[in-house]
């Protein structure tokens, strides 16, 4: 299998889908140049109409994506940094999320939003946010969080082909990673999680960029004879509850690692589902390893203190092992 970069995987997914389906187009701020390089080269290949550079105008382009989707296109809207979603919350949460429902199932919104999320090193609070918990609270949106190059390609292609609004959150730090990506057509269906490492003593449920960190911890713990399973939900909506609970049933112990904040976050949501539906499998309390409940700070020692990392995951694992 070829090894490619995370960004290249995204570029391949967009390029292949644009080639396959003339109704797919991408628009966003500086997609011509490619602010994060994910769209680089697509403008030259597909032209200004289908790689549509926009003004800085999040609400306008999010809404235009919605209207274009309703009128028969399949837009990909790039929102650059995740925090910029706040500028178009109405369009995403009030319009895209609700139009199908409010229209009694008439509206079809084959629409993909992409953004870069997470802390990528002293970008401070307005460029470091994990914003998907806000969207978990808005029924009607699918939420995808790839953890590596293969997931980025497979999930993004599935998102583009889905007939619903899908938000794809690409972690900035993962942009520097590479991974094996299967050749040719490669799709990961939305709503299916994956065991990234099999184990029997404890499950780390890791979201997005926490997956490679969880794998590192699992490798380290293996040296001490502890068998850690790493489970990646891949999509938070729809959630593969069955897959998640199967892993919990197998190990009986759970650490949930997410870069989002503790309060009102994705980790809490998953923990609640496990308690509701898998309480009898649990042999220990569920531990959540997340960012602390402050905006992400600028100065490196402060940022490191606030963010979850391998050491914090390992400590949580050790705390609930027998």
């Amino acid at each position, binding site marked *: 299998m070829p090894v490619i970069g995370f960004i290249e995987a995204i570029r391949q997914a967009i390029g292949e889908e644009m080639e396959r389906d003339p109704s797919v187009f991408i628009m966003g701020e500086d997609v011509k140049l490619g602010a994060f390089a994910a769209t680089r080269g697509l403008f030259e290949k597909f032209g200004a109409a289908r790689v549509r550079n926009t003004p800085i105008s999040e609400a306008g382009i999010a809404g235009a994506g919605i*209207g274009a989707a*309703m009128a028969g296109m399949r837009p990909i809207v790039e929102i650059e940094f995740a925090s910029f979603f706040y500028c178009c919350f109405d*369009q995403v949460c009030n319009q895209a999320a609700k139009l199908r429902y409010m*229209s009694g199932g008439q509206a079809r919104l084959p629409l993909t939003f992409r953004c870069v999320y997470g802390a990528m090193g002293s970008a401070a609070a307005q460029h470091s946010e994990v914003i998907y918990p806000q969207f978990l609270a808005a029924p009607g949106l699918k939420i995808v969080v790839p953890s590596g190059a293969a997931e980025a390609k497979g999930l993004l292609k599935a998102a583009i082909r889905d007939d619903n609004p899908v938000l794809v959150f690409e972690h900035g730090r993962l942009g520097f990673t590479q991974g094996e990506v299967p050749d040719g057509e490669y799709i990961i269906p939305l709503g299916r999680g994956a065991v990234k490492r099999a184990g029997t003593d404890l499950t780390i449920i890791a979201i997005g960029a926490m997956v490679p960190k969880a794998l590192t911890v699992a490798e380290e713990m293996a040296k001490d004879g502890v068998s850690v399973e790493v489970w990646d939900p891949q999509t938070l909506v729809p959630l593969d509850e069955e897959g998640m609970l199967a892993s919990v049933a197998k190990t009986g112990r759970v650490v949930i690692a997410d870069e989002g904040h503790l309060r009102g976050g994705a980790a809490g949501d998953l923990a609640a589902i496990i308690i509701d539906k898998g309480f009898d499998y649990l042999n220990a309390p569920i531990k959540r390893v997340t960012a602390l409940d402050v905006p992400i700070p600028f100065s490196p020692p402060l940022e490191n203190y606030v963010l979850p990392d391998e050491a914090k995951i390992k400590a949580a694992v050790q705390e609930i092992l027998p």
Partner: protein
Amino acid sequence: MQATTLAKEQLFSMYRMMVTIRRFEEALRNLFFQGQIPGFVHLSIGEEAVPTGVCAALTDKDYITTTHRGHGHMLAKGGKPKLMMAEMFGRRTGYCKGKGGSMHIVSYDLGILGANGIVGGGIPIAVGAALASSFRGNDAVAVAFFGDGASNEGTFHESANLAGLWKLPVIFVCQNNGYAEFTPTSESTAVKDIAIRAQGYNMPGVIVDGNDVLAVYEVVKTAVARAKRGEGPTLIEAKTYRWEGHVVGEQAFVGEYRPAAEIEAAKQRCAIVLFAKKLLATGFIEQAELDRIAAEVQRKIDEAIAFAQSSPFPEPQEALDDVFAP
């Protein structure tokens, strides 16, 4: 009169539409006070010439987005009174199976991409439909209906900029009824005429008498032709007046905030009466014919109410359907 470009049958049909909107909304008001309509009802009585004149210049394949005050736009774009009324009653037979109600009606088949409960929320969506039209080369135009209040929302300005920049086939119709919720436009808007905002986005800005259905029709027709030639958007400000309050029943909590003389003066310029007078003066039509149209409309509205009243409510668990497309 300006009616030269319209055939007699089109004029009749415009008259019928204005009366339909008036009677539909009067019925809604009465039904609301009888406790038969759940939720909020926002009426556009007095503003009938705007939706009628605009939609007369559109075809079935054109798109509109409308507002929380959208019954008139829906009807004028071809919405069936029965299916709309059933939706108002929260019945399963309504346009949205009882999930949208008065403020959120969609009819895909008619190109109605949504009434919208958020002021300014539908404007960029119309721009997107126009963008799709430019991709698909299907010659469709999109109309964004909005109020004077929405012209102060960021979405209006972002949408106008995108449309002006990309020369999209979209028409921004600002239905200026003098009030944004309970606040007069003069207290909420820095400019006197919203149409001049078009200058900032490289498009024509046109002011039209929103109580003159034929004048509205003509300016929209010009804007449609411009859009189809690929010359881009137009902003039309139709000046009219809202006879009723912002929301039915508001007197109970806000009282009356508008001068009685102002309301009375507006009623003296009733769009339906003005149009009837014109039609009678040209000899196109006789009073008996207008009365016949009014009676026929009333019958249709009564049928719509009976249909809604006799329609079933959805089963409670239907609340879980339609979140996602399969």
